[in-house]
């Protein structure tokens, strides 16, 4: 008697059938799967990269100093710029930050430092809800709340709409980094006799600063690219900023208007504006991620 058991006595292995035909089918479906994965990935990456590169190539030749500093030219004229749109976007993001940063940050502090029980669960849920609402709804909200009562489109209403969009982004990223701060730091501070408020303000928040800043900058970059909520609030204009209760231009709004334009000059400027907007958003978000990338590794 040989010591090796007969085939029928071996434990069955569903993945190792002796038949050659089955083996071929298995290898074939494996190859098919790999091919599918490679092809879809290649398709996704090529389409998306093509889009970015195409817009960049179309827009780059039309970038010059006057594009950044001048007002849009009269319809049909060549030249002119989008200076007022860049100014307007900076103003709108600034106004939005006044609302979005404190609300988002304090919500995050509440959730990470005081948050227990059903109420904080509800708050967290509401923040997620806020994050999922299509941005045009915030535009409608600011429109009904500010534009209609004051009988005019305004930078203020645009800032309010963008500010509410910022809240959940700031709150979720800040809560995540505040939770990463080790509990021992808090306990050490409390053991030294510091009050809870002092512990939070002088120990926890400083330890999480880089992560909080990352979240804030990402939120600003995100709202800088928003168009839909600005249609019915900031509205757009072709003049320099004249006051928070007046309409103001924004980079995405200017791109939207120029895309529809019958004049090739303005279509070129829409491409150039897109390049500026995309570079602005990507630079800020990646610069801040790179600059503060060491945060998670510190603990």
């Amino acid at each position, binding site marked *: 008697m040989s010591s090796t058991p007969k085939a029928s006595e071996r434990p069955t292995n569903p*993945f*190792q059938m002796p038949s050659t035909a089955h083996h071929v089918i*298995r*290898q074939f479906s*494996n190859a098919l*799967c*790999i091919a599918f*994965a*490679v092809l*879809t*990935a290649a398709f*996704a*990456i090529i*389409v*998306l990269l093509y*889009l*970015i590169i*195409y*817009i960049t190539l179309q827009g780059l030749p039309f970038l010059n100093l006057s594009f950044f500093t001048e007002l849009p030219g009269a319809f049909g004229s060549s030249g002119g710029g989008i200076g007022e749109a860049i100014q307007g976007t900076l103003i709108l993001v600034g106004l939005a930050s006044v609302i979005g940063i404190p*609300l988002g*940050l*304090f*919500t995050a502090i509440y959730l990470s430092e*005081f948050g227990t029980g059903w109420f904080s669960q509800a*708050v967290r*849920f*509401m923040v*997620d*809800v*806020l994050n*999922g*609402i*299509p*941005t*045009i*709804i*915030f535009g*409608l*909200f600011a429109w*009904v*709340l500010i534009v*209609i009562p004051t009988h005019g489109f305004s930078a203020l209403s645009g800032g309010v709409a963008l500010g509410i969009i910022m*809240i959940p982004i700031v709150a979720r990223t800040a809560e995540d980094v505040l939770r990463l701060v080790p509990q021992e730091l808090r306990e050490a501070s409390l053991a030294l006799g510091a*009050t*809870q*408020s*002092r512990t939070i303000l002088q120990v926890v928040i400083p330890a999480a600063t880089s992560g909080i800043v990352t979240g804030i900058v990402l939120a600003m970059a995100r709202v*800088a*690219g*928003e*168009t*839909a909520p600005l249609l019915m609030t900031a509205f757009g204009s072709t003049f320099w900023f004249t006051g928070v209760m007046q309409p103001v231009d924004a980079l*995405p709004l200017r*791109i*939207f208007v120029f*895309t529809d334009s019958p004049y090739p000059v303005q279509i070129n400027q829409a*491409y150039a504006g*897109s390049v500026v907007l995309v570079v602005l*958003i*990507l630079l800020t978000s990646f610069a801040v991620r790179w600059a503060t990338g060491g945060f998670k590794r510190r603990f």
Partner: protein
Amino acid sequence: MQGKIATTGEEGLRSLLSTLTGGNRRLSDILFQGVTALFVLLTLASVFGIAWVLVSYSLPTLATFGWHFLTNQAFDPVHNIYGVAPAIFGTLVTSFFAIIFAVPIGLGAAIFLVEFCPRPLRPALSFIMDMLAAVPSVVYGLWGFLVMAPWLISTGEPWLHRYLGFLPFFDGQYHGLGLLAAGMILVIMILPLIISVSREVMLTVPRSQREALLALGATRWEVIRHAILPGARIGIVGGIILALGRALGETMAVTMVIGNQATAPSWSLFNTGYTLASVIANQFGEATPGLFLSALIETGLLVFIITLIANILARLLVSHVGRGRIGGLAA
């Protein structure tokens, strides 16, 4: 006199400050927590405020049309009849088109990134994905309007009509702008989201599961089929619903390429149309107080409710995965 008052004022302030910061610890903590809670209430107020504004301003149309708002054919200020039937149709068609094409492509790409991608390429590819998720929708809209729509009218739609014209979807006049263009731009826009969510949930499947199957002699496809997909299934479905929510509410890119004109109802994807969100973006300029305004806000309310349901479902599914209740072969 003046100086003395100022000094006492300063002393008072200082003693108040010391009370707040050191003298009376409980008071400062209570104050800080109170201020924090106040901001939390403001955040909550913005959510409830939005819901309240949408509902209260929708009441006139709700009272006038009731459910007929969903079946009436158009915004007709002349006869003061408002309805969103074509917009609901356009929203559903474009979103489901996007999901049908973006899900297999996105899943395949995610499987590639997790299972087959050469290690040195990985950071570069995730960088590209992050980058694309950050591109604003107006830029996708610009590309769709200036590049994709002209291509569709000259090449894409004639080709589809010639080879797939027996299907009702690819029949009729070529417009370039239309449901097909909107669906295609949505595919591109939700791809990064589907890829990143699927990739993340696939990575949560424990290494031991893969290694166990590989040790049994399974092929790579069998590992994916029997270990990774079952383990990540719930999270992937959550990601798909999240992407669906994004597609249902997307405004700018869709508004720029969908044509914003009603055509006679048919199944053709070549037709122009509109979505709920694009109706709002297009019509707010003409809105007059009264039923028109109310109808616009009710359209917003519909978008709000639809995306809310999608998001709640998606979060429940994704958080279910996040808690680590995955990875079982039997799942």
